[in-house]
């Protein structure tokens, strides 16, 4: 009896893995096609757009840039100056010092001639207490508002910023990101363009600045990072941003806007209660909640995406930092999907419920677990002697080729769309990385993802516990290089 059950389970698992492999392939093919169509339309539209008008037009919406900072004393002044020099008419920069333990606030006060004000702070979204709100005596910095508050994590800091913001649109960014001068004008466009639907949020591409030349807030010369981990992330970003998000935008199914660079309608963010501070995936969670709000009320809406390179950041090239980042990403995904499980396969939520949510559940959240199960399944087959080398090799080759072809496509896609990496040596390095990735990087990514699942099960950073450890990068660096940070 038990033997029969065992063989039945193995048979069923075999069929499930077979169909999973099929669905992975079909999904990637669809993503390739949809993203190519969306990129074609975007490039056509961009040929005729004149962004100069937005800068001064009274019809363009105002933008509040929210930049949370935690222990950023080394670069904060330069970063704020860069933000203040963006080309746009109606904008304010709200810098939220989230209880930094270093001299971030002092540096800001002295560099921008700040004084504490009697700002009547209204807590529309609950957040940690505000110690003071600063403005500059110098009119040159009148766009700058600095909030000093108790530490509460990134989402909490952003909620404080939302409470203070006075403009129609919110630009939530990481303070250490490099923003192109035209970043606001280009990101604002989708909000202004739509006629039949309300654009609730717009996401942007995060470019990789490692090893690149930066001048006046823009990457002027692209080079691939020096390490394999860095180069892998270039390919991964091409796949995720240029292909994945463009494809989801095509069908209005985008569920994630990067926390490092995203624009939102302020009134709607307040209506849904702002960022949820008890999850590590606050960026995805907010977008899903905003979408749910619109779906529940049957209001036509859109989450847009701008693929132009407008924002750059340095990605981690050390395994320790990258592993923590991936662990956090997977936990954020699990938390968000758990919080909003009501939408899964629910036709009331349209495409989000029937396609986006299942996709995220299977191909993002469960991917590391399924890969582990696949490995265990193969091992069991070998042990019981029911292992077909032909099936195994065929599937292995198919999936390896799939991985390489998708990576090649994403590199080509970048080349056709933007052609940033002009040096042929860089291209060769990227192609070599695509060959090596499935063996040298992917197993690690799966392992780190499994760690995220394990940590979630253990309750680390779930919404049961308040996260008070500051920001991602700082947190990671602190764990790895405590002496460097203290010095």
């Amino acid at each position, binding site marked *: 009896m038990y033997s029969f059950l065992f063989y039945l389970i193995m048979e069923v698992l075999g069929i499930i893995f077979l169909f999973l492999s*099929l669905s992975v392939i079909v999904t990637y093919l669809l993503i390739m096609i949809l993203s190519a169509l969306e990129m074609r339309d975007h490039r056509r539209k961009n040929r005729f757009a004149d962004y100069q008008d937005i800068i001064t037009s*009274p019809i363009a919406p105002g933008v509040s840039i929210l930049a949370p900072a935690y222990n950023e004393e080394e670069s904060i002044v330069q970063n704020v100056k860069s933000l203040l020099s963006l080309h746009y008419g109606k904008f304010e920069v709200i810098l939220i010092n989230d209880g930094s333990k270093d001299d971030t606030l002092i540096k800001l006060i002295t560099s921008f001639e700040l004084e504490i*004000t009697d700002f009547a702070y209204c807590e529309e979204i609950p957040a940690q207490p505000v110690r003071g709100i600063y403005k500059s005596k110098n009119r040159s910095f009148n766009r700058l508002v600095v909030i000093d508050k108790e530490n509460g994590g990134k989402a909490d800091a952003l909620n404080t910023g939302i409470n203070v913001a006075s403009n129609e649109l919110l630009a939530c960014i990481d303070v250490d990101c490099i923003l192109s001068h035209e970043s606001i004008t280009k990101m604002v466009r989708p909000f202004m363009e739509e006629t039949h639907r309300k654009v609730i949020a717009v996401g942007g591409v995060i470019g990789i600045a490692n090893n690149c030349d930066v001048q006046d807030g823009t990457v002027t010369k692209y080079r691939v990072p020096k390490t394999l981990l860095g180069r892998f992330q270039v390919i991964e970003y091409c796949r995720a941003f240029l292909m994945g998000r463009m494809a989801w935008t095509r069908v209005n199914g985008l569920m994630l806007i990067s926390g490092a660079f995203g624009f939102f309608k302020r009134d709607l963010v307040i209506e849904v209660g702002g960022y949820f501070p008890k999850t590590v995936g606050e960026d995805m969670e907010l977008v899903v909640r905003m979408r749910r709000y619109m779906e529940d009320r049957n209001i036509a809406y859109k989450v847009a995406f701008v693929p132009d390179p407008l924002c750059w950041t340095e990605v981690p090239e050390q395994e320790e930092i990258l592993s923590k980042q991936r662990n956090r990403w997977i936990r954020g995904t699990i938390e968000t999907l758990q919080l909003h499980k009501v939408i899964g396969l629910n036709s009331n939520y349209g495409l989000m419920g029937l396609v986006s949510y299942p996709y995220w559940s299977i191909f993002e959240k469960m991917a590391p677990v399924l890969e582990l199960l696949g490995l265990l399944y193969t091992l069991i087959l070998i042990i019981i002697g029911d292992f077909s080398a032909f099936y195994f090799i065929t599937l292995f080759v198919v999936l390896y080729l799939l991985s390489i072809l998708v990576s090649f496509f994403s590199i*080509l896609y970048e080349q056709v769309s933007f052609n940033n990496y002009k040096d042929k040596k860089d291209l060769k390095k990227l192609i070599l990385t695509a060959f090596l990735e499935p063996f040298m990087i992917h197993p690690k990514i799966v392992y780190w993802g499994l760690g995220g699942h394990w940590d979630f099960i253990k309750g680390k950073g779930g919404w049961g516990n308040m996260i008070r450890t500051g920001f991602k990068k700082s947190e990671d660096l602190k764990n790895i290089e405590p002496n460097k940070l203290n010095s």
Partner: protein
Amino acid sequence: MGQEELAFPDSISFVDFLKNQGEIPGLQYSLVDSYGKIFLDSITGIPLKNKGIADFTTALALRDSLFLSYSVYSKIQFLLYSEVNTFEATQEYVSNLLRNGDINPKIANISNGKDLISLASRERYSPLPSSLFAFFGDFKIFIIIGIIALFFLIALAMIFLMLIFKAQGNRREKLFSLYDEQIVEPLSEILFEKSLQELESLTDGELNKSFPAKQLNKPIYRQVLTERILALNKKMKGEFKLKLKALYKRLNLDKVTIEKLKSKRWDRVVMGLVEVNEMDLKEALNEVNKHVNSPNFHVRSQAVATVLNLSETADLSFLRDQTFPLSRWQQMNYLRIIKYLNSSRDLHINSLFSSHNQSIRLFGYKLVRILGLVELLAELEEKFKVISDEEKIEIIKTFEYLGVPVHAEVINDSLKSENIELVCIAAKAAGEIGDLKSANIIYEILDNAPGFRLKMILLKSLRNLNEELYNQVIIKDSNSDLQRINKHLLDPLLQDV
């Protein structure tokens, strides 16, 4: 049951099989006499009672020896799991065992003296075509092969397409820079060394020396030339602009532009519209007018902008009749043109107020505000009572922006609205254009403990309208919100926040 299912085509082959096979699980034999009585151990000398005979050859030998020794006739009986069964049932049972692979048939020794054909006739029959479909019979491998084929075909096709695009892009880039180099010199020469009259009097032959006819037939060359002329036209003024427009027509680029307006691809149509607009091709206006109500957002936007820009007679009535909602992007583009044209001709901006399309009416109110059309304010006040709250908000913003205090009644009525957004806008405007009555209404609203944001707006306006009343509120109420707002309003650093 077909031959495929029954392993033995006839009884002879089954008996032969039993002889060859020896012991078969679950199958035993016994010997019975003509009355069906089982032979006892004492007669046969073999223990038959319980187990039966395991081997068919042994049973046969025993039967023969009984006949030879005792002249007794006996029959072999088939026992399936100790139960007596018929020959046919036994044959079926053994067939099943064979089919399921539970027993492996023993192959008869090839050196038994029989020829190959007779040996072959002992092999189980199986139809030849079935082996052809065995491959497809295994659905897993079929799916895998299907996936591989599908994936490879599509993925390779897409990568191949991308490579073509990339190669085309590189080729275009090279040609662009090559043609650009060829164009810059003759273009500069014509612009800076020839007058407009000289340019117009040039023969085709002379013109072709600078811009060869062969090259002009090449689409990329034409595109580079067009883009160059358009870019220069944006930057230059006066006679240079006229020369560029004259050259555009002399090179027949205007005909190419008008052709683009008839294209099925929306991006080509938009490009044509941009060129018509930039080069003032008024002869193309009829064609442009066809696109004013295009369902494509980009085509429609550019067509409206072009008509506004080029038509000397057109006012905004054609915009009034548009059915598509007007986006802010379109409003921004039209505003730039209307701002420029408004000083030179009457655009009948007030015609927009009577549009059936709310977004166009709202745009009309915004135009009054941005262009400072004070003479249209009375018309707006007249409409105020019969319009939606959304439109009221836009009109109040206009009244506030233009700062004409005669519209206080409209503001005061709106302050009593149940729509909080309208009350907020009215309260804000009251600070600029309200009267004593507005101050009293604000005072009353403050008594009803409104939300924080509205409270702040109300207090700010009240302070502007009547400082005495404002102080009364602050002194009378020790509510921490009011005190905090008071401090905020008094802080010089927060005057613009």
